[in-house]
């Protein structure tokens, strides 16, 4: 058992090293090809500090969702509802602040509670009733988005948030975009939870051997519940940051984000079957995709083709397959050898 654990940790480390390499190569290529001087003689493009901060800002929400999904996927679960929950929480926040007239801080706090409640719905069905997470969260994926639309009749958009709140999404604090700090704190907290606590180990044990976990006396229900409620809460935090960055809360916020987040987690080396994976891996996965997406948009040839988004999608797909294939081959070799 212990040897297996060591082997897995080794493989994992290898995956992360590989991903780091990809990231460095991406970054270098974009730095080289994506930095130019414009006609006014100003250095523009990927190599500017502004652009680097943009990359950071643009990846915070999806990054948070990816962080939220890491424990869930470690337990061999999945949560397709995080993007919809982001939308619902954005709308709830808007209503609490605008319609109910609460101060921004209180509205934000209650929004986090709402996110936790959304996560608790998933948790109750997955952990309480032992239903398959894919179906449960497919249902709540529709339900949460539907509630967001029903609450606003699809039509209401909340704007004119106070500057103090927009600071969270549009300004810098201590040199970094404000939301980056939230992201870093969340990353550190979830990193500690996953890698340094009993609960974190329980996530992985559950993904590895669910039956064994039960016989070993692990509180299966509680562990699962923690993962899903945490995911809901983090999705609410992402909703606040999204709202602050765009300056509006609307029922369509975060549409499709769950797929980007799952992609980042899996690219980061977390096994979709659970048990294996790490928070640093997820962070690297998020970074690799974000740099790819934002970097391609600075390369003149790509700009001329107007194809940055499509090419980023294509390359992300290819990168994902490559990472998987390499992982599979590496593992096969290891098992046989």
């Amino acid at each position, binding site marked *: 058992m212990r040897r297996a654990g060591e082997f897995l940790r080794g493989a994992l480390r290898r995956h992360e090293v590989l991903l780091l390499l990809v990231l460095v190569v991406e970054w270098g290529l974009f*730095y080289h090809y994506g*930095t*130019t*001087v*414009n*006609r*006014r*003689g*100003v*250095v*523009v*493009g*990927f*190599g*500017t*500090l*502004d*652009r*680097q901060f*943009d990359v950071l*800002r*643009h990846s915070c929400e999806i990054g948070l969702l990816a962080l939220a999904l890491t424990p869930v996927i470690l337990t061999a679960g999945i949560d397709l509802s995080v993007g919809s929950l982001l939308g619902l929480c954005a709308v709830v926040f808007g209503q609490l602040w605008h319609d109910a007239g609460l101060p921004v801080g209180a509205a934000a706090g209650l929004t986090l509670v709402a996110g936790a409640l959304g996560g608790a719905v998933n948790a109750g069905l997955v952990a309480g009733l032992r239903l398959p997470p894919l179906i449960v969260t497919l249902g709540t994926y529709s339900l949460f988005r539907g509630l967001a*639309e029903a609450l*606003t*009749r*699809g*039509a209401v*958009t909340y*704007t*004119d948030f106070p500057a103090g709140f*927009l600071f969270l999404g*549009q300004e810098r604090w201590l040199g970094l975009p404000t939301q980056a700090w939230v992201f870093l704190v969340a990353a550190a907290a979830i990193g500690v939870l996953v890698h340094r606590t009993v609960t974190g180990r329980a996530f992985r044990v559950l993904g590895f051997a669910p039956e064994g976990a039960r016989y070993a006396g692990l509180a299966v229900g509680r562990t699962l519940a923690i993962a899903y409620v945490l995911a809901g809460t983090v999705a609410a935090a992402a909703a606040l940051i*999204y709202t602050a*960055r*765009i*300056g*509006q809360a*609307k*029922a*369509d*916020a975060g*549409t499709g984000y769950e797929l980007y987040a799952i992609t980042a987690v899996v690219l980061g080396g977390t096994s979709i079957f659970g048990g294996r994976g790490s928070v640093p891996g997820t962070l690297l996965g998020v970074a690799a995709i974000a740099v790819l997406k*934002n970097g391609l*948009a*600075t390369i003149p040839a790509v*700009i*001329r083709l*107007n194809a*940055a*988004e*499509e090419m980023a999608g294509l390359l992300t797909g290819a990168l994902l397959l490559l990472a998987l294939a390499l992982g599979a081959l590496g593992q096969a070799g290891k098992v046989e050898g």
Partner: protein
Amino acid sequence: MPRRLLPVLSAFLGLALAASAADSRLVVALMPKAKGNAYFISVKAGAERAAKELGVDLLFDGPADTDAAKQNEIVENWITLGVDVIAVAAENKEGIATALRKAQRQGIKVLTYDADTLPDARSFFVNQATPAGIGNRLMDEGARLCAGQGEFAIITATLTAGNQREWMKYIQARLAEKYPGMKLVAVRPCDDLKDRAQSEATALMSAYPNLKLIMAICSPAVPGAAEAVKQAGKVGQVKVTGLGLPNENQRYVKEGVTGAVILWNTDHLGYLTAYAAVAVARDELKPGAKTFHAGALGDFQVVGDNILLGQPFVFTKENIDQFNF
């Protein structure tokens, strides 16, 4: 780290700088609401023609599907690319303003076209038709098709789509004000999918046997609704109108399924926007101007900070052949 590398990089690029200064062309960045949409592809064609005539570089990029967050990200990318002028069709009025103001602070000129942002976040708005103009025209045309009497339904893009919501507001206002004989019985979304619009229209016709008109206010829904009416054998009994492109609707308009399709000339919208953008960037178009001359299209009226394209156009059986976009 990037900051430390920048001087080195700048030195490196010194030669390139000298070289690029020689053919320094103005860079115009044009953003659609959704770049795969036929409407904006036609806008792009007009803008490209203008860019060629003016000798400027044109960037055209936007979200694949309408996505306010993605629009902000692309504007921020253009800021770091140091483009000279940005023209945006705003998916969300307030949402995009943040990014556009940032661009203005960096000395980039900003215009909007198709859908406006907050006035302080741009210099001019190329106004193809006000939401009121569109809403009124749609309602008037719909009322004309069914002689001001009967039930009608609307098929929209999504329930959250910004433009559509705005138009519906004016459609309903016009309805209340001028057409007491008509009644809006249902609003259904089609997710910008033609096939879904077809299914929705089929269900609407069977649920509301007295339905006289389907008003499709996103472009894929117009041919979708028309096909449904045709398949239900209700041509003439249920009229179709909406905002759509001539090419996608030609066959239905000629067969008499779709009474009329309303749209401004999107190709001209792109052309005018590109001309206005270049003029603003070159300081040739300033606040207070009364008219603006755009190449082959001649003079356009300027009212305040709105450059007016003119009235929306009604495509009918008689004229739809003359357009190709």
